[in-house]
């Protein structure tokens, strides 16, 4: 598999790059129906929901509670308008503390 593997990796790279590139290079946004534009602008917020759940509950296979505590820390910090990096660091810090309880 040695020599073959690098070709497989290049193949993986191609099938990953093509969907990343095609819409950006081919779409003319002015031609899209306003309804479609509205839907595309909804995508970031919908995808954030799907990226967070259920994944965050599974970060520790032994306990849901772990993800719940980390997420709660992040929600509180974000609610208080801390910037993204502070939110990330504080939830790591809270969970790091929790592992020693």
């Amino acid at each position, binding site marked *: 598999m040695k020599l073959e593997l690098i070709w497989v990796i290049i*193949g993986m790279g191609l099938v990953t790059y093509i969907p990343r590139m095609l819409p950006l290079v081919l779409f003319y946004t002015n031609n899209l129906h306003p309804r479609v534009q509205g839907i595309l602008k909804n995508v970031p917020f*919908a995808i954030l929901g799907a990226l967070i759940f259920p994944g965050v509950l599974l970060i520790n296979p032994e306990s849901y509670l772990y993800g719940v505590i980390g997420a709660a820390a992040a929600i509180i910090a974000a609610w208080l308008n801390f910037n993204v990096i502070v*939110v990330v660091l504080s939830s790591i810090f809270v969970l790091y503390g929790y592992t020693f309880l």
Partner: protein
Amino acid sequence: MLPSPALPKVHTPAQWKKGLKAGLPIAIGYMPIAFTFGLLAKAAGLSLFETVGMSVIVFAGASQYIALSMIAAASGAAELILTTFIMNIRHLLMSASLNERAEDDPKWLKALYAFFITDETFSVAATSLEKKITGSYLLGLGLVAYSCWVVFSGVGYIMGSGLPPSLQASMGIALYAMFIALLVPAAKKSRKVVALAGSAAVLNSLFSFIPLLNGGWGIILSTLIAAVSIEFVMKGEERNEA
């Protein structure tokens, strides 16, 4: 489009720096994941060249992990590439969505920064408060995330032993905390954002119980269903993205 090589005025060092800075939380989140990828790649029998090569060429976390388990299970090349494609087809949706907010840049520049689209770089860029997202910003953002991913894949491979378990476990929250930090400010201001994220979260959680939708399809389906149905239900409402 004119064949002028000059970039529009919006491509300032300030935009580039903004992108670099916005990439920092992603870099923190990628560190443990890339590190562990390097570690597992070594265990799966890849060479250092193949491990770093995969991160350089593919740059897609989940599918690289799955590739390792498939290589370890001696799966065929076609199966591996097809699985990668299915895992990453959701980038179509992100690329199309980003195109709505992106500056009217030359095609080569769009084709270049498109390479850096991941769940994380897309989320950061698409929730940024700029009216139009510039190529300089996206390149800065992408390069920080990418270099961290590539470097730490190699570091994980060479170190060959895991991070301390307590640190490893707590750093697993990093990317989720970042997603939450990107979502909350918009959700505070807009019912529509709450509805979009909430419905996609519920759908994706339900889909995770269906083996066929585990992996790439669940995220695409739940995002599409939420984005389309909420657009019809809450037509007039704003998302307050800017």
